[in-house]
């Protein structure tokens, strides 16, 4: 925190620098999030999402969670988003033009969301969390994160590998397209197998 502040604003008040940075990153992510909602072109939507993710990564930096910010940039922006863009490209042959929702739906959705947002803000403000300021006096080492991952959270950590393995297998299965001769092979295989099945039926 201190290091970033000192790099970016050498002689400015210690309170103002983080505030400015916050508004910068928050503005980027909020505006791009709105862009995700509003843009009609899917590629543009993806770009907006990219900016949101980057803005959020910046917020992690502000919160002294450098490791998480790195993960966000590497895994989210570099992995997940690229995956999404691949998806966009692979399916881009389909007609995009008339993807517009009906006006009634838009009104209902926006109204509901505005009400919800207002309620959420009221709830958050009513909660009145303390403290509202960062305590920057104490050390906040990354090594503790590793310790937590391999200590208290060892089980979910290991489980994540299982999740990823299973998901990878499933995704690979679905994504690999089945060719025409494949289908014929299926038919043949089914025929031989169902001969046996027919004995029962």
């Amino acid at each position, binding site marked *: 925190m201190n290091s970033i502040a000192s790099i970016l604003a050498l002689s400015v008040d210690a309170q103002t620098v983080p505030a400015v940075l916050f508004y910068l990153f928050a503005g980027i992510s909020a505006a791009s999030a709105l862009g995700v909602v509003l843009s009609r072109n899917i590629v543009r939507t993806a770009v907006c999402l990219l900016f949101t993710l980057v803005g959020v990564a910046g917020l992690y930096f502000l919160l002294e969670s450098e490791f998480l910010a790195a993960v966000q940039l590497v895994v989210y922006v570099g992995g997940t988003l690229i995956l999404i863009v691949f998806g966009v490209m692979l399916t881009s042959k389909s007609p995009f033009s008339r993807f517009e929702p009906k006006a009634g739906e838009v009104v209902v959705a926006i109204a509901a969301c505005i009400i919800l947002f207002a309620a959420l803000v009221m709830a958050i403000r009513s909660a009145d969390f303390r403290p509202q300021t960062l305590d920057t006096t104490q050390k906040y080492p990354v090594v503790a994160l590793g310790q937590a991952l391999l200590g208290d959270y060892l089980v979910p950590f290991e489980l994540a590998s299982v*999740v990823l393995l*299973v*998901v990878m*297998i499933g995704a690979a299965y679905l994504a690999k397209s089945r060719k025409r001769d494949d289908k014929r092979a299926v038919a043949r295989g089914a025929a031989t197998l169902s001969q046996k099945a027919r004995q*029962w*039926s």
Partner: protein
Amino acid sequence: MNIVAAAIGRPYIPGWTDLGPFVAEGWLIVTVVGLLLAPFFARRRNLACFLVALAGLTAALISLLWVGVPAPGRAPLRGILIADSFALLWKAMLIVFTVGVLFLWRSTTASEMREGDGPEFFTLLIGATLGMSLMASTTNLLMIVMAVELASLPSYVLAGFRKTHRLGAEASLKYVLFGAGCSALMIYALTFLYGMYGTLDLGAIARQVQGGAHAHPALLTIAFFGLIAGVGFKIAAVPFHFWCPDVFEGASVEVTAFLSVASKGAGLVLLLRVLMTFADAMEYRAAQPLVALAYAVGILGAITATVGNTAAFAQNNIKRLLAYSSIAHAGYMMCAVSLLFNLNGHQTDAASGVNAPAQVLLFYLTVYLFMNLGAFAVAALVYRATGSEDISAFNGLVKRNPVLAHAMMACMISLIGLPPFAGFVAKLNLMLVLMNNGGGWWILVAVIAVNSIASAFYYFRVLRAIYLEPAGADQPAFAGHPLGVALAAGSGLALVLMLVLASPVSALTRHYARMQGIGGAAATPATKPVVTVSAAP
């Protein structure tokens, strides 16, 4: 080096006392690996994978029962996971049911499946099973999220496993979009729980809620909303049920059967454990936020049962009908979960640690497992023979295949909840416990009773087709795969047996209805008229 070592501290290496109770999960992971290796050693890959999966599940079941439950008071794996008898019985049921699903696959879809797709299919199935078993044994928020996702993500793929099948593709699309939305909602809402109490352990959170610390009722509301959204999606509670009929219809039948019992059961078990953790910390007193929570779950259960039953009325597709039926049954079970505070005592008996709603849920799930397995097995075999999932495909089944017809009859009547099948006992047990709670739960009893009557209409439509309609010219008699017939007949038989042996089943579920960390507070004895028989001559 020394500084780093000091900072890292000693590495955490879990020992046998930590991992022992979770050998079954270990076996499931080993099975996943085995499934990936099996195709290299066998020519008939699908069959090999079937056998590997069967062996893995059997090993898991045996080790589960062998190891049993560790002594209470210990929290293995630093409290991330819980091993108690409640989870144990659910896991045993889950594994038994998954074996049933494997048999169902063998007797129906196996002949259609392309050689070589087996490893993927079974990996996904076992992976989802692992997730569902973990859902039962945790109160850690992170673990809950992980387990729910591990259960969900493979299920999405399973729903669309028949790649060339348009309906399958549509089903999995709907499933994944709906599921991703609900789980995202849940995760967002759960962050507030962490924000308010600074811990991911629900037990600790519950104790703080009881203590009144950091009381932010509005945020607590958000958190519970999210929780119900995430779990409600798994159990297809209204209004999180939209995916259910479409996915059930689009997926192949063994996947549908799997989702209808395993997925819902896991969700209910998780919901019960989470809510009971709160209720126990609050000593089952009728205080906020428990009251609101209990009412919410109860009302949701009643609505779910009603919507499920009424919507099932006009269905012609048997899988869709069973989907709505499963929604209705999830509603009944949610009514049991809503017993968060008791007007005349405690839900958990302090002396024995037996939790009444847990008992009801376990009992109901045990019976429900067989009802659905049997019904889906018959539906699958009829589909194999006629190529149709319509109810009209059942026309004259009693002449075409009497064993399947009678098995279906048993399942349908049991699903209604009529004697002489176990569904009656399960429903009776549920209603008795609800009545015993008194107060507003009488309304739930009435709702369940009315719903049961209404449900008779659509279940009887199937029976009518089976017994009264004549078979069409294109509906010849058929034998069906022996494994599937055995599955159906076995389920029917189990339903009769469980009615006759209701007492041992009840005792079993009672014995296992104990949750770690939930022991009930100092109980006041419930007053009930006790009848003493006058001395015999």
